[in-house]
Protein backbone atom coordinates (compact mmCIF):
# COMPACT_ATOMS: atom_id res chain seq x y z
CA UNK A 1 0.00 0.00 0.00
CA UNK A 2 1.22 3.48 -0.77
CA UNK A 3 2.08 5.41 2.36
CA UNK A 4 3.88 8.41 0.90
CA UNK A 5 2.01 11.65 0.33
CA UNK A 6 4.11 14.56 1.58
CA UNK A 7 6.08 16.67 -0.90
CA UNK A 8 9.47 15.46 0.27
CA UNK A 9 8.27 11.87 -0.04
CA UNK A 10 7.93 12.17 -3.84
CA UNK A 11 10.85 9.84 -4.55
CA UNK A 12 8.98 7.19 -2.54
CA UNK A 13 5.74 7.62 -4.42
CA UNK A 14 7.21 6.48 -7.71
CA UNK A 15 8.88 3.47 -6.12
CA UNK A 16 5.74 2.47 -4.25
CA UNK A 17 3.73 2.74 -7.45
CA UNK A 18 6.11 0.36 -9.23
CA UNK A 19 5.99 -2.13 -6.39
CA UNK A 20 2.20 -2.02 -6.35
CA UNK A 21 2.05 -2.50 -10.11
CA UNK A 22 4.36 -5.46 -9.99
CA UNK A 23 2.32 -7.06 -7.23
CA UNK A 24 -0.92 -6.58 -9.13
CA UNK A 25 0.64 -8.03 -12.23
CA UNK A 26 1.85 -11.00 -10.27
CA UNK A 27 -1.61 -11.54 -8.77
CA UNK A 28 -3.40 -11.24 -12.10
CA UNK A 29 -1.16 -13.58 -14.00
CA UNK A 30 -0.08 -15.76 -11.10
CA UNK A 31 3.57 -14.99 -11.72
CA UNK A 32 6.43 -15.23 -9.28
CA UNK A 33 7.97 -11.75 -9.18
CA UNK A 34 9.91 -12.17 -5.98
CA UNK A 35 13.23 -11.68 -7.70
CA UNK A 36 12.14 -8.38 -9.21
CA UNK A 37 10.27 -7.29 -6.11
CA UNK A 38 12.95 -7.84 -3.49
CA UNK A 39 15.46 -5.24 -4.72
CA UNK A 40 12.70 -2.68 -5.17
CA UNK A 41 11.48 -3.19 -1.65
CA UNK A 42 14.99 -3.02 -0.32
CA UNK A 43 15.49 0.22 -2.17
CA UNK A 44 12.22 1.57 -0.75
CA UNK A 45 13.28 0.83 2.81
CA UNK A 46 16.64 2.46 2.22
CA UNK A 47 15.12 5.51 0.64
CA UNK A 48 12.59 5.89 3.44
CA UNK A 49 15.28 5.70 6.09
CA UNK A 50 17.42 8.14 4.21
CA UNK A 51 14.64 10.70 3.81
CA UNK A 52 13.47 10.34 7.39
CA UNK A 53 16.96 10.55 8.82
CA UNK A 54 17.36 14.00 7.33
CA UNK A 55 13.97 15.59 7.96
CA UNK A 56 14.08 19.35 8.59
CA UNK A 57 12.05 20.68 11.52
CA UNK A 58 9.40 22.00 9.14
CA UNK A 59 9.16 18.63 7.42
CA UNK A 60 8.62 17.08 10.84
CA UNK A 61 5.73 19.50 11.35
CA UNK A 62 4.25 18.20 8.11
CA UNK A 63 4.73 14.59 9.22
CA UNK A 64 3.26 15.32 12.65
CA UNK A 65 0.16 16.84 11.06
CA UNK A 66 -0.30 14.17 8.41
CA UNK A 67 -3.78 12.64 8.31
CA UNK A 68 -2.16 9.26 7.60
CA UNK A 69 -0.45 9.21 10.96
CA UNK A 70 -2.02 7.06 13.67
CA UNK A 71 -4.46 9.06 15.80
CA UNK A 72 -5.52 8.51 19.41
CA UNK A 73 -8.24 6.03 18.43
CA UNK A 74 -5.71 4.02 16.40
CA UNK A 75 -3.53 3.63 19.48
CA UNK A 76 -6.55 2.76 21.59
CA UNK A 77 -7.44 -0.01 19.15
CA UNK A 78 -3.89 -1.36 18.91
CA UNK A 79 -2.30 -0.85 22.35
CA UNK A 80 -5.24 -1.60 24.63
CA UNK A 81 -8.07 -4.08 25.13
CA UNK A 82 -11.51 -3.94 26.72
CA UNK A 83 -12.08 -0.32 25.61
CA UNK A 84 -15.26 1.49 26.54
CA UNK A 85 -15.66 5.12 25.58
CA UNK A 86 -17.18 7.61 28.01
CA UNK A 87 -18.83 10.82 26.93
CA UNK A 88 -19.56 14.33 28.08
CA UNK A 89 -18.52 16.88 30.67
CA UNK A 90 -21.85 16.64 32.58
CA UNK A 91 -22.26 20.38 32.15
CA UNK A 92 -22.71 21.35 28.54
CA UNK A 93 -22.06 18.72 25.87
CA UNK A 94 -19.79 16.00 24.57
CA UNK A 95 -16.76 17.33 22.71
CA UNK A 96 -15.67 15.08 19.86
CA UNK A 97 -12.19 16.60 19.78
CA UNK A 98 -11.32 14.58 22.87
CA UNK A 99 -11.97 10.86 23.27
CA UNK A 100 -11.75 9.20 26.65
CA UNK A 101 -12.64 5.99 28.36
CA UNK A 102 -11.64 2.86 30.21
CA UNK A 103 -9.23 0.42 28.64
CA UNK A 104 -6.77 -2.24 29.67
CA UNK A 105 -3.03 -2.13 29.18
CA UNK A 106 -1.65 -5.63 29.53
CA UNK A 107 -4.78 -6.61 31.45
CA UNK A 108 -4.73 -3.70 33.92
CA UNK A 109 -7.34 -0.94 33.83
CA UNK A 110 -6.24 2.54 32.79
CA UNK A 111 -8.06 5.73 31.83
CA UNK A 112 -7.17 6.77 28.29
CA UNK A 113 -7.73 10.39 27.22
CA UNK A 114 -6.60 11.96 23.98
CA UNK A 115 -7.16 14.58 21.33
CA UNK A 116 -8.86 13.05 18.29
CA UNK A 117 -8.43 14.41 14.78
CA UNK A 118 -10.40 13.33 11.73
CA UNK A 119 -9.18 11.83 8.47
CA UNK A 120 -11.85 13.30 6.20
CA UNK A 121 -14.09 16.36 6.16
CA UNK A 122 -17.04 14.64 7.77
CA UNK A 123 -14.98 13.25 10.61
CA UNK A 124 -13.15 16.53 11.02
CA UNK A 125 -16.44 18.35 11.49
CA UNK A 126 -17.26 15.97 14.30
CA UNK A 127 -13.76 16.21 15.75
CA UNK A 128 -13.30 19.92 15.08
CA UNK A 129 -9.85 19.10 13.65
CA UNK A 130 -8.78 17.96 17.11
CA UNK A 131 -9.30 21.42 18.60
CA UNK A 132 -11.22 21.07 21.86
CA UNK A 133 -13.73 23.47 23.36
CA UNK A 134 -13.72 24.03 27.14
CA UNK A 135 -16.18 21.16 27.51
CA UNK A 136 -13.58 18.83 25.99
CA UNK A 137 -11.07 19.74 28.67
CA UNK A 138 -13.75 19.45 31.32
CA UNK A 139 -14.66 15.99 30.10
CA UNK A 140 -10.97 15.09 30.33
CA UNK A 141 -10.76 16.44 33.88
CA UNK A 142 -13.93 14.68 34.96
CA UNK A 143 -12.49 11.37 33.82
CA UNK A 144 -9.06 12.02 35.31
CA UNK A 145 -10.81 12.56 38.65
CA UNK A 146 -12.70 9.33 38.08
CA UNK A 147 -9.42 7.51 37.49
CA UNK A 148 -8.06 8.99 40.71
CA UNK A 149 -11.16 7.90 42.59
CA UNK A 150 -10.60 4.30 41.52
CA UNK A 151 -6.80 4.55 41.71
CA UNK A 152 -6.15 3.79 38.09
CA UNK A 153 -3.28 5.25 36.01
CA UNK A 154 -4.02 7.88 33.37
CA UNK A 155 -2.67 7.63 29.84
CA UNK A 156 -3.05 10.70 27.61
CA UNK A 157 -2.36 11.21 23.92
CA UNK A 158 -1.56 14.71 22.68
CA UNK A 159 -2.42 15.53 19.08
CA UNK A 160 -3.90 18.98 18.50
CA UNK A 161 -3.18 22.20 16.61
CA UNK A 162 -4.42 23.91 19.79
CA UNK A 163 -7.51 24.70 21.81
CA UNK A 164 -10.26 26.12 19.60
CA UNK A 165 -10.26 29.92 19.32
CA UNK A 166 -13.90 30.92 18.92
CA UNK A 167 -16.72 32.88 20.46
CA UNK A 168 -18.43 29.99 22.24
CA UNK A 169 -15.09 28.71 23.50
CA UNK A 170 -14.30 32.09 25.03
CA UNK A 171 -17.79 32.49 26.48
CA UNK A 172 -17.57 29.15 28.21
CA UNK A 173 -14.10 29.82 29.60
CA UNK A 174 -11.44 28.21 27.42
CA UNK A 175 -8.72 29.74 29.60
CA UNK A 176 -10.27 28.53 32.82
CA UNK A 177 -10.81 25.02 31.48
CA UNK A 178 -7.15 24.68 30.45
CA UNK A 179 -5.85 26.32 33.63
CA UNK A 180 -8.01 24.04 35.78
CA UNK A 181 -6.60 20.93 34.11
CA UNK A 182 -3.04 22.12 34.71
CA UNK A 183 -3.53 22.72 38.41
CA UNK A 184 -5.59 19.58 38.97
CA UNK A 185 -3.16 17.37 37.07
CA UNK A 186 -0.37 18.78 39.23
CA UNK A 187 -2.05 17.18 42.24
CA UNK A 188 -3.66 13.94 41.00
CA UNK A 189 -2.71 10.97 43.16
CA UNK A 190 -2.35 8.42 40.34
CA UNK A 191 0.37 7.90 37.73
CA UNK A 192 -0.01 10.01 34.58
CA UNK A 193 1.84 9.28 31.34
CA UNK A 194 1.37 11.68 28.43
CA UNK A 195 2.52 10.93 24.89
CA UNK A 196 2.80 13.53 22.15
CA UNK A 197 1.82 11.51 19.07
CA UNK A 198 1.42 14.27 16.46
CA UNK A 199 1.25 18.01 16.91
CA UNK A 200 1.43 19.34 20.46
CA UNK A 201 -0.07 22.78 19.97
CA UNK A 202 0.48 25.09 22.93
CA UNK A 203 -1.84 25.35 25.95
CA UNK A 204 -4.43 23.16 24.28
CA UNK A 205 -1.85 20.36 24.28
CA UNK A 206 -0.42 21.05 27.73
CA UNK A 207 -3.92 20.72 29.21
CA UNK A 208 -3.41 16.94 28.83
CA UNK A 209 0.32 17.10 29.44
CA UNK A 210 1.10 17.75 33.11
CA UNK A 211 2.26 14.18 33.60
CA UNK A 212 4.81 12.17 35.58
CA UNK A 213 6.37 11.11 32.31
CA UNK A 214 6.05 12.92 29.01
CA UNK A 215 6.86 10.76 25.99
CA UNK A 216 7.10 11.89 22.42
CA UNK A 217 7.14 10.09 19.11
CA UNK A 218 10.24 10.66 17.04
CA UNK A 219 8.54 12.82 14.44
CA UNK A 220 6.01 14.55 16.66
CA UNK A 221 6.36 18.27 17.47
CA UNK A 222 5.50 20.21 20.62
CA UNK A 223 5.47 23.98 20.62
CA UNK A 224 4.33 27.11 22.39
CA UNK A 225 2.98 28.51 19.11
CA UNK A 226 2.49 27.18 15.58
CA UNK A 227 5.37 27.81 13.20
CA UNK A 228 2.97 29.85 11.05
CA UNK A 229 1.86 31.98 14.00
CA UNK A 230 5.43 32.58 15.13
CA UNK A 231 6.64 33.57 11.65
CA UNK A 232 3.63 35.84 11.14
CA UNK A 233 4.16 37.69 14.41
CA UNK A 234 7.94 38.02 14.31
CA UNK A 235 8.66 38.29 10.61
CA UNK A 236 5.30 39.32 9.19
CA UNK A 237 5.24 36.24 6.99
CA UNK A 238 3.52 33.09 8.16
CA UNK A 239 3.13 31.58 4.68
CA UNK A 240 6.46 31.27 2.90
CA UNK A 241 8.33 27.99 3.43
CA UNK A 242 11.54 29.91 4.27
CA UNK A 243 10.02 31.81 7.17
CA UNK A 244 8.11 28.78 8.43
CA UNK A 245 11.33 26.77 8.34
CA UNK A 246 13.12 29.55 10.19
CA UNK A 247 10.43 29.51 12.89
CA UNK A 248 10.42 25.71 13.09
CA UNK A 249 14.18 25.73 13.66
CA UNK A 250 14.19 28.64 16.10
CA UNK A 251 11.39 27.28 18.29
CA UNK A 252 13.14 23.93 18.87
CA UNK A 253 10.02 21.83 18.56
CA UNK A 254 11.29 18.39 17.56
CA UNK A 255 11.48 15.38 19.87
CA UNK A 256 15.30 15.41 20.13
CA UNK A 257 15.18 19.15 20.94
CA UNK A 258 12.63 18.65 23.68
CA UNK A 259 14.48 15.70 25.09
CA UNK A 260 17.57 17.85 25.33
CA UNK A 261 15.57 20.65 26.99
CA UNK A 262 14.29 18.04 29.49
CA UNK A 263 10.68 18.73 28.67
CA UNK A 264 10.32 15.21 27.33
CA UNK A 265 11.46 12.09 29.20
CA UNK A 266 11.60 9.57 26.37
CA UNK A 267 11.56 9.65 22.59
CA UNK A 268 9.66 6.73 21.07
CA UNK A 269 11.21 5.59 17.76
CA UNK A 270 9.08 5.48 14.63
CA UNK A 271 9.54 2.94 11.83
CA UNK A 272 11.44 3.99 8.71
CA UNK A 273 9.20 6.28 6.71
CA UNK A 274 7.47 7.62 9.80
CA UNK A 275 4.59 6.42 11.98
CA UNK A 276 2.19 6.55 9.02
CA UNK A 277 4.31 4.00 7.12
CA UNK A 278 3.49 1.32 9.68
CA UNK A 279 0.77 1.82 12.29
CA UNK A 280 1.35 -1.62 13.79
CA UNK A 281 5.01 -1.15 14.53
CA UNK A 282 4.44 2.37 15.85
CA UNK A 283 1.68 1.19 18.17
CA UNK A 284 3.90 -1.64 19.41
CA UNK A 285 6.67 0.85 20.26
CA UNK A 286 4.19 3.11 22.05
CA UNK A 287 2.71 0.22 23.99
CA UNK A 288 6.11 -0.97 25.17
CA UNK A 289 7.06 2.52 26.32
CA UNK A 290 3.76 2.94 28.19
CA UNK A 291 4.11 -0.42 29.90
CA UNK A 292 7.62 0.34 31.08
CA UNK A 293 6.76 3.82 32.38
CA UNK A 294 3.56 2.84 34.15
CA UNK A 295 5.25 -0.15 35.71
CA UNK A 296 7.88 2.18 37.20
CA UNK A 297 5.33 4.74 38.37
CA UNK A 298 3.07 2.17 40.01
CA UNK A 299 5.83 1.41 42.51
CA UNK A 300 5.74 4.95 43.94
CA UNK A 301 3.49 5.95 46.81
CA UNK A 302 0.93 8.61 45.79
CA UNK A 303 2.54 11.37 47.91
CA UNK A 304 5.93 10.71 46.41
CA UNK A 305 4.48 10.54 42.92
CA UNK A 306 2.79 13.93 43.28
CA UNK A 307 5.83 15.53 44.90
CA UNK A 308 8.10 14.34 42.11
CA UNK A 309 5.67 15.48 39.43
CA UNK A 310 5.54 18.97 40.93
CA UNK A 311 9.31 19.11 41.34
CA UNK A 312 9.77 18.07 37.73
CA UNK A 313 7.72 21.00 36.43
CA UNK A 314 9.06 23.44 39.02
CA UNK A 315 12.54 22.81 37.63
CA UNK A 316 11.60 23.72 34.07
CA UNK A 317 12.98 26.87 32.50
CA UNK A 318 16.40 28.42 31.97
CA UNK A 319 17.50 31.83 33.24
CA UNK A 320 20.43 33.74 34.71
CA UNK A 321 20.79 34.30 38.45
Amino acid at each position, binding site marked *: MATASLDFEKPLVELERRIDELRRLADDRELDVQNELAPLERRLTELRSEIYRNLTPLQRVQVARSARRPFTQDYIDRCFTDWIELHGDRQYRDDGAIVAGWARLDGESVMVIGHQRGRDTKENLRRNFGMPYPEGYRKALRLMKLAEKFQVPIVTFIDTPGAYPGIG*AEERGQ*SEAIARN*LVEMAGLQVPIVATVIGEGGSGGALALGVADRVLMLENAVYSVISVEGCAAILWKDGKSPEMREKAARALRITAPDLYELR*VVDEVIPEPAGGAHADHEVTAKNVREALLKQIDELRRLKPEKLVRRR*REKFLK*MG*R*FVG
Partner: protein
Amino acid sequence: MAWFRKERKPRVPRRERLEIPPDAWEKCEACGHTDIREKFARNLNVCPECDYHRRIRAVEYVNILLDENWEETEEDLKSADPLGFPEYSARLKKAQTNAGDTDAILTATGAVGGLPVNLGVMDFAFMGGSMGSVVGEKIARAGQRSLERKQPFLIVSASGGARMQEGVLSLMQMAKASAILSQLAERRIPYVSILTNPTTGGVSASYAMLGDAILAEPGAVIGFAGPRVIKQTLGQDLPEGFQTAEFLVEHGMLDAVVHRRDLKATVGQLLRHMTGKPAAALTAP
Protein backbone atom coordinates in the same frame (compact mmCIF):
# COMPACT_ATOMS: atom_id res chain seq x y z
CA MET B 1 8.76 108.35 54.65
CA ALA B 2 5.30 107.14 54.03
CA TRP B 3 4.11 104.50 56.41
CA PHE B 4 1.52 103.10 54.16
CA ARG B 5 3.18 103.12 50.86
CA LYS B 6 2.00 100.26 48.81
CA GLU B 7 4.72 97.88 47.93
CA ARG B 8 4.87 97.60 44.22
CA LYS B 9 4.95 94.12 42.90
CA PRO B 10 5.96 93.68 39.34
CA ARG B 11 2.79 93.21 37.44
CA VAL B 12 2.34 89.76 36.05
CA PRO B 13 0.14 89.50 33.06
CA ARG B 14 -2.87 87.36 33.89
CA ARG B 15 -2.44 85.02 30.99
CA GLU B 16 1.14 84.21 31.77
CA ARG B 17 0.32 83.36 35.35
CA LEU B 18 -2.25 80.77 34.33
CA GLU B 19 -0.12 79.23 31.70
CA ILE B 20 0.82 75.63 32.31
CA PRO B 21 3.64 74.15 30.32
CA PRO B 22 2.20 72.29 27.36
CA ASP B 23 3.74 68.97 28.39
CA ALA B 24 1.82 69.00 31.67
CA TRP B 25 -1.38 68.17 29.84
CA GLU B 26 -2.57 64.70 29.08
CA LYS B 27 -5.36 63.39 27.00
CA CYS B 28 -7.44 60.32 27.78
CA GLU B 29 -6.91 57.70 25.07
CA ALA B 30 -10.51 56.58 25.38
CA CYS B 31 -12.71 59.69 25.60
CA GLY B 32 -10.31 62.47 24.61
CA HIS B 33 -10.76 64.29 27.91
CA THR B 34 -7.80 66.59 28.51
CA ASP B 35 -6.55 67.27 32.00
CA ILE B 36 -3.42 68.12 33.94
CA ARG B 37 -1.12 65.16 34.16
CA GLU B 38 -1.08 65.41 37.91
CA LYS B 39 -4.80 64.96 38.04
CA PHE B 40 -4.49 61.71 36.08
CA ALA B 41 -1.72 60.62 38.40
CA ARG B 42 -3.68 61.47 41.54
CA ASN B 43 -6.54 59.43 40.12
CA LEU B 44 -4.18 56.40 39.75
CA ASN B 45 -4.10 56.96 36.00
CA VAL B 46 -7.79 56.43 35.61
CA CYS B 47 -9.50 59.07 33.45
CA PRO B 48 -11.41 61.41 35.80
CA GLU B 49 -14.05 61.78 33.12
CA CYS B 50 -14.77 58.32 31.70
CA ASP B 51 -13.04 55.95 34.17
CA TYR B 52 -10.82 54.50 31.46
CA HIS B 53 -8.07 52.57 33.24
CA ARG B 54 -4.76 53.42 31.65
CA ARG B 55 -1.93 50.93 31.59
CA ILE B 56 0.48 51.50 34.48
CA ARG B 57 3.80 50.00 35.46
CA ALA B 58 4.28 47.09 37.83
CA VAL B 59 5.79 49.22 40.59
CA GLU B 60 2.71 51.46 40.55
CA TYR B 61 0.47 48.47 41.25
CA VAL B 62 2.75 47.44 44.09
CA ASN B 63 2.35 50.93 45.57
CA ILE B 64 -1.40 50.81 45.09
CA LEU B 65 -1.81 47.38 46.68
CA LEU B 66 0.80 47.15 49.42
CA ASP B 67 1.34 49.15 52.58
CA GLU B 68 4.53 51.19 52.81
CA ASN B 69 7.84 49.43 53.36
CA TRP B 70 7.39 46.60 50.91
CA GLU B 71 10.46 44.90 49.55
CA GLU B 72 11.24 43.70 46.08
CA THR B 73 12.24 40.03 45.88
CA GLU B 74 13.89 37.82 43.24
CA GLU B 75 15.65 40.90 41.86
CA ASP B 76 18.63 38.98 40.58
CA LEU B 77 16.82 36.83 38.00
CA LYS B 78 17.40 37.74 34.36
CA SER B 79 16.27 36.18 31.12
CA ALA B 80 18.79 34.03 29.30
CA ASP B 81 18.47 33.10 25.64
CA PRO B 82 18.17 29.34 26.14
CA LEU B 83 17.36 28.50 22.51
CA GLY B 84 19.64 31.01 20.80
CA PHE B 85 16.51 32.45 19.24
CA PRO B 86 17.02 34.99 16.41
CA GLU B 87 17.09 38.59 17.66
CA TYR B 88 16.06 37.62 21.20
CA SER B 89 19.21 38.85 22.97
CA ALA B 90 18.92 42.24 21.30
CA ARG B 91 15.23 42.51 22.16
CA LEU B 92 15.96 41.64 25.76
CA LYS B 93 18.61 44.30 25.97
CA LYS B 94 16.25 46.86 24.51
CA ALA B 95 13.48 45.87 26.91
CA GLN B 96 15.86 46.11 29.86
CA THR B 97 16.92 49.59 28.77
CA ASN B 98 13.37 50.77 28.21
CA ALA B 99 11.44 48.95 30.89
CA GLY B 100 13.99 48.08 33.56
CA ASP B 101 15.59 45.02 35.04
CA THR B 102 12.64 43.22 36.56
CA ASP B 103 11.70 41.37 33.35
CA ALA B 104 7.94 41.03 32.78
CA ILE B 105 7.13 40.56 36.45
CA LEU B 106 8.06 42.30 39.67
CA THR B 107 7.78 40.24 42.82
CA ALA B 108 7.59 41.70 46.29
CA THR B 109 6.84 40.91 49.87
CA GLY B 110 4.80 43.27 51.99
CA ALA B 111 1.38 43.69 53.52
CA VAL B 112 -2.16 44.59 52.48
CA GLY B 113 -3.74 46.57 55.30
CA GLY B 114 -1.39 44.95 57.79
CA LEU B 115 -1.85 41.43 56.44
CA PRO B 116 1.46 40.01 55.15
CA VAL B 117 1.37 38.79 51.54
CA ASN B 118 3.60 37.87 48.64
CA LEU B 119 2.86 39.62 45.39
CA GLY B 120 3.78 39.33 41.74
CA VAL B 121 2.89 42.08 39.28
CA MET B 122 3.36 41.59 35.56
CA ASP B 123 4.59 44.50 33.51
CA PHE B 124 3.26 44.91 29.98
CA ALA B 125 6.03 47.40 29.24
CA PHE B 126 8.58 44.56 29.23
CA MET B 127 8.05 42.67 25.96
CA GLY B 128 4.28 42.81 26.22
CA GLY B 129 4.30 41.14 29.62
CA SER B 130 5.30 37.91 27.92
CA MET B 131 5.85 34.91 30.17
CA GLY B 132 9.21 33.20 29.85
CA SER B 133 11.42 31.28 32.27
CA VAL B 134 12.04 34.29 34.53
CA VAL B 135 8.34 35.02 34.99
CA GLY B 136 7.70 31.38 35.84
CA GLU B 137 10.63 31.17 38.25
CA LYS B 138 9.69 34.38 40.06
CA ILE B 139 6.14 33.15 40.48
CA ALA B 140 7.40 29.79 41.72
CA ARG B 141 9.73 31.42 44.26
CA ALA B 142 7.22 34.00 45.48
CA GLY B 143 4.61 31.25 45.73
CA GLN B 144 7.05 29.06 47.60
CA ARG B 145 7.57 31.88 50.09
CA SER B 146 3.80 32.09 50.54
CA LEU B 147 3.75 28.38 51.17
CA GLU B 148 6.56 28.46 53.75
CA ARG B 149 5.28 31.52 55.59
CA LYS B 150 1.61 30.64 55.19
CA GLN B 151 0.93 34.08 53.69
CA PRO B 152 -1.59 34.80 50.95
CA PHE B 153 -0.35 35.08 47.39
CA LEU B 154 -1.41 37.74 44.88
CA ILE B 155 -0.68 38.06 41.17
CA VAL B 156 -1.58 41.04 39.01
CA SER B 157 -1.56 39.89 35.39
CA ALA B 158 -0.90 41.93 32.25
CA SER B 159 0.29 39.82 29.38
CA GLY B 160 -0.14 38.89 25.76
CA GLY B 161 0.80 35.31 26.65
CA ALA B 162 3.86 33.08 26.55
CA ARG B 163 7.21 34.43 25.32
CA MET B 164 7.72 32.55 22.08
CA GLN B 165 11.45 33.32 22.00
CA GLU B 166 11.87 30.74 24.76
CA GLY B 167 9.82 28.18 22.86
CA VAL B 168 8.34 25.26 24.73
CA LEU B 169 10.15 26.34 27.91
CA SER B 170 7.71 29.26 28.03
CA LEU B 171 4.79 26.88 27.62
CA MET B 172 6.09 24.84 30.55
CA GLN B 173 5.93 27.91 32.79
CA MET B 174 2.16 27.46 32.77
CA ALA B 175 2.62 24.02 34.30
CA LYS B 176 5.28 25.35 36.65
CA ALA B 177 3.00 28.05 38.06
CA SER B 178 0.21 25.49 38.38
CA ALA B 179 2.51 23.18 40.34
CA ILE B 180 3.02 25.85 43.00
CA LEU B 181 -0.64 26.93 43.00
CA SER B 182 -1.81 23.37 43.54
CA GLN B 183 0.32 23.26 46.70
CA LEU B 184 -1.10 26.56 47.95
CA ALA B 185 -4.60 25.21 47.37
CA GLU B 186 -3.77 22.02 49.26
CA ARG B 187 -2.58 24.02 52.30
CA ARG B 188 -5.58 26.39 52.12
CA ILE B 189 -3.43 29.44 51.51
CA PRO B 190 -5.46 32.07 49.65
CA TYR B 191 -4.45 33.10 46.16
CA VAL B 192 -6.07 36.17 44.60
CA SER B 193 -5.66 36.88 40.90
CA ILE B 194 -6.11 40.39 39.52
CA LEU B 195 -6.47 40.79 35.77
CA THR B 196 -5.56 43.99 33.99
CA ASN B 197 -5.53 45.01 30.36
CA PRO B 198 -4.70 42.73 28.60
CA THR B 199 -4.60 39.22 30.04
CA THR B 200 -4.58 36.68 27.22
CA GLY B 201 -2.91 33.49 25.97
CA GLY B 202 -0.84 31.28 28.22
CA VAL B 203 -1.11 33.61 31.20
CA SER B 204 -4.90 33.64 31.15
CA ALA B 205 -4.89 29.85 30.58
CA SER B 206 -2.91 29.24 33.76
CA TYR B 207 -2.43 31.24 36.96
CA ALA B 208 -4.62 34.20 35.95
CA MET B 209 -7.76 32.04 35.93
CA LEU B 210 -6.95 30.02 39.04
CA GLY B 211 -7.54 32.53 41.82
CA ASP B 212 -9.62 31.71 44.88
CA ALA B 213 -10.96 35.09 43.90
CA ILE B 214 -10.50 36.54 40.43
CA LEU B 215 -10.87 40.31 40.05
CA ALA B 216 -10.41 42.47 36.97
CA GLU B 217 -10.07 46.13 36.21
CA PRO B 218 -12.89 47.74 34.21
CA GLY B 219 -12.55 47.38 30.46
CA ALA B 220 -9.60 44.96 30.61
CA VAL B 221 -9.42 42.60 27.63
CA ILE B 222 -9.28 39.03 28.92
CA GLY B 223 -9.35 35.86 26.87
CA PHE B 224 -7.60 32.74 25.70
CA ALA B 225 -7.21 33.65 22.05
CA GLY B 226 -6.60 37.25 21.11
CA PRO B 227 -9.45 39.03 19.31
CA ARG B 228 -7.38 39.15 16.12
CA VAL B 229 -6.90 35.39 16.03
CA ILE B 230 -10.59 34.70 16.60
CA LYS B 231 -11.60 37.18 13.93
CA GLN B 232 -9.20 35.52 11.52
CA THR B 233 -10.42 32.02 12.35
CA LEU B 234 -14.09 32.85 12.05
CA GLY B 235 -13.84 35.45 9.33
CA GLN B 236 -16.45 37.57 11.04
CA ASP B 237 -16.56 40.58 13.33
CA LEU B 238 -16.78 40.01 17.05
CA PRO B 239 -19.70 41.15 19.18
CA GLU B 240 -19.44 44.52 20.93
CA GLY B 241 -17.65 44.29 24.27
CA PHE B 242 -16.51 40.70 23.60
CA GLN B 243 -13.70 39.57 25.96
CA THR B 244 -13.90 42.61 28.23
CA ALA B 245 -13.88 42.21 32.00
CA GLU B 246 -17.58 43.06 32.05
CA PHE B 247 -18.30 40.34 29.44
CA LEU B 248 -16.43 37.80 31.55
CA VAL B 249 -18.31 38.64 34.72
CA GLU B 250 -21.55 38.25 32.83
CA HIS B 251 -20.44 34.82 31.64
CA GLY B 252 -19.46 33.74 35.12
CA MET B 253 -15.70 33.75 34.61
CA LEU B 254 -14.75 36.43 37.17
CA ASP B 255 -15.85 37.31 40.67
CA ALA B 256 -15.96 41.06 40.20
CA VAL B 257 -14.86 44.05 38.18
CA VAL B 258 -13.11 46.40 40.58
CA HIS B 259 -12.09 50.03 40.08
CA ARG B 260 -8.38 50.62 40.59
CA ARG B 261 -9.00 52.85 43.58
CA ASP B 262 -10.92 50.04 45.31
CA LEU B 263 -8.47 47.23 44.54
CA LYS B 264 -6.56 47.31 47.80
CA ALA B 265 -9.64 47.46 50.01
CA THR B 266 -11.33 44.67 48.05
CA VAL B 267 -8.27 42.40 48.16
CA GLY B 268 -7.88 43.10 51.88
CA GLN B 269 -11.52 42.30 52.54
CA LEU B 270 -11.31 39.02 50.61
CA LEU B 271 -8.10 37.95 52.32
CA ARG B 272 -9.56 38.67 55.74
CA HIS B 273 -12.54 36.49 54.95
CA MET B 274 -10.33 33.69 53.68
CA THR B 275 -7.86 33.78 56.56
CA GLY B 276 -10.36 34.08 59.39
CA LYS B 277 -9.30 37.59 60.37
CA PRO B 278 -11.79 40.15 61.69
CA ALA B 279 -13.02 42.80 59.28
CA ALA B 280 -10.77 45.81 58.81
CA ALA B 281 -11.98 49.07 60.33
CA LEU B 282 -12.42 50.39 56.81
CA THR B 283 -15.01 47.83 55.81
CA ALA B 284 -16.77 47.56 59.18
CA PRO B 285 -20.32 48.94 59.16
